[in-house]
């Protein structure tokens, strides 16, 4: 009784939007699709909604062939990254629209709509025009419309991406609450995003998508701890994980004339060339450390991102305080060797600080 996709492929204009995608989504769960822009996330959601027909592959829901059912009979709901509402209707009429379309009884409609508006915090805005609302409120209307419908499949396509930073944080918190209490046990929620932080916070099952291909599937924690390859490591971290080409010898890890003690989880690795991965947050300023040159320093919120360079290697360090740096200034940094990943030449994960590679 699940939503099952088998080998879905969609390839208009000789470019894969979906490349042999398979999945098995269970009711009552939250699934997040993580991928960069143009990785096929929207295509993925539109295919499930029925707005696109895959070139090949099967899609079934509750044991029935899904691809034969037209969009308007599928009982799905979708929130777009653009704030799509019906501009000619007010807030209440917008939320009521899908329910009226299904010809539910007046009482049922009223309770469902009131409940949905309460959930998204728009009580009192019923008679407002859509144009009179802020972006965040418009997106709440779209969400309320989707929730009121009580669809069995709820699709959210980067719903926060067009909001400003503050609103995004706030709405993300609310989403977590809404999803944890508002999601009925027979609904499937699919949420797509480019933001790894959103994925971690929503803490659902994650599908990492790139160029239409599923790179990795698993719980958010698993993706974070053991990114299967370099691509996943890059996509699932913001800033992307630093990758350093280097050699492991019997005593040291060596890259760019820096040698570092071998962390315990690397003990069993063969001595050869590797791509070492380290997260920006595992690099600290340290007077005893290695000297790097600052290429760029950005302050974001209460953190400072340092783009550093030494030889051919570039790393990004995340400093958890606001500091002022000059470009081309030299700073000394230290790597937390216990948090090093090792990827082989093909880019596959060989060793992770969290161990347990096949778990």
């Amino acid at each position, binding site marked *: 009784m699940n939503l099952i996709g088998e080998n879905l492929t969609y390839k208009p204009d000789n470019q894969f939007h979906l490349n042999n995608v398979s999945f098995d989504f269970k009711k009552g769960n939250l699934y997040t699709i993580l991928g960069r822009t143009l990785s096929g996330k929207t295509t993925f959601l*539109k295919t499930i*909604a*029925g*707005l696109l027909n895959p070139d090949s592959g099967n899609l079934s829901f509750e044991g029935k062939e899904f691809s034969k059912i*037209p*969009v*308007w*009979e*599928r009982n*799905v*709901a*979708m929130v*777009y990254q*653009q*704030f*799509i*509402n*019906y*501009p*000619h209707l007010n807030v209440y009429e917008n939320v009521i*629209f*899908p329910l009226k*379309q*299904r010809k539910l009884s007046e009482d049922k409609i009223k309770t469902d709509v009131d409940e949905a508006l309460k959930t998204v915090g728009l009580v009192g805005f019923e008679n407002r*025009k*859509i*144009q009179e*609302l802020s*972006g965040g409120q*418009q997106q709440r209307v779209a969400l309320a*419309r989707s929730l009121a*419908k009580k669809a069995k499949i709820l699709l959210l396509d980067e719903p926060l991406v*067009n909001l400003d930073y503050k609103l995004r944080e706030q709405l993300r918190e609310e989403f977590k609450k809404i999803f944890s209490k508002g999601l009925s046990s027979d609904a499937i929620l699919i949420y797509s995003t480019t933001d790894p932080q959103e994925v971690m916070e929503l803490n659902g099952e994650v599908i990492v998508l790139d160029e239409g291909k599923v790179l990795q599937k698993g719980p958010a924690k698993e993706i974070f701890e053991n990114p299967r390859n370099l691509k996943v490591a890059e996509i699932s971290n913001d800033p992307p994980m630093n990758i350093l080409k280097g050699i492991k010898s019997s005593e040291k890890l060596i890259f760019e004339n820096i040698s570092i003690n071998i962390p315990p989880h690397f003990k069993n690795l063969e001595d050869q060339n590797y791509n070492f991965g380290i997260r920006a947050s595992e690099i600290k300023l340290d007077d005893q450390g290695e000297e790097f040159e600052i290429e760029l320093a950005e302050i974001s919120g209460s953190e400072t991102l340092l783009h550093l360079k030494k030889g051919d290697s570039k790393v990004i360090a995340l400093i958890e305080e606001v500091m002022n740096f000059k470009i081309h200034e030299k700073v000394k940094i230290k790597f937390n060797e216990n948090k090093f990943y090792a990827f082989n030449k093909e880019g596959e994960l060989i060793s992770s600080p969290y161990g347990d590679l096949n778990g």
Partner: protein
Amino acid sequence: MEKLYKFLKYTFIILWTVFIVAPFLWAVSTSFKDFQSVNSKVTYIPWLDFEPTLEGWRVLVKSPARGGVDIVEPYFNSIFVTCTASLISIILGTLAAYALSRFTFKAGFVRNNDITFFFISQRIMPPIVLSIPFFIFLSTIGLLDSLLGLVVVYIVLLMPIAVWIMVDFFNRVPKELDETALIDGCNPYQAFYKVVLPNSIPGLIVAGMFCIIFGWIDFFFAFILTFTEVQLLPVKVVALNSSITPWWSLSASALISVAPLIIVAFVVERYLSKGNLSGALK
């Protein structure tokens, strides 16, 4: 500097207004004159310069038998032909435009843009080129000198305008709006008339206005395709001009000819600024 700018701006606006309004005032004044007041010397102000008379207006409603030129019937003919042709053009044109905006058509080398261009190309040809085919066509199906025949011809002339304006309009309506309607349980027809159409009112009004204007002012086809049974207003107005030009009744008929367009413009104006789609898509 700013004062100078303001001064120049308002001077220009006033001059332009005079330029636009003066002919109308001139026509109003002339319509109340008689032969004497027009031909003797230049006169402007009624009662002061000349004795006003309603003769110019009376002629227009008198039957020919009593020495008048009845423009009441051509007037209603024009209203009927213009409105019917505009309405049908808007309905068909909007449907065609929606299809051209939302679906992909392929027939040989022909694509959506080619079809749109085909519609517009109907307006590229000089009317004189179309006159003979239209004449033969209408005479073959027996609709020469009839209201229905004129409606058919005007649909051919007006529909391209509707298609052209509406394709452009629909292209600016986000496709996600239709998709949301489909997801919310509308079939494609319901999505069109429940969601897309109510949000296209500004476009419909602009297209409708252009159709009405172009239909109303057409002289050429009304002149060529009618003889005695049916006459349209522009033809009748021009026909007033005989050996002696009756400036007074010409002025009066010109004024009542533009009156409907002025009314339409005033009614429509408030819809034009109102319709924006900002709530659909940021």
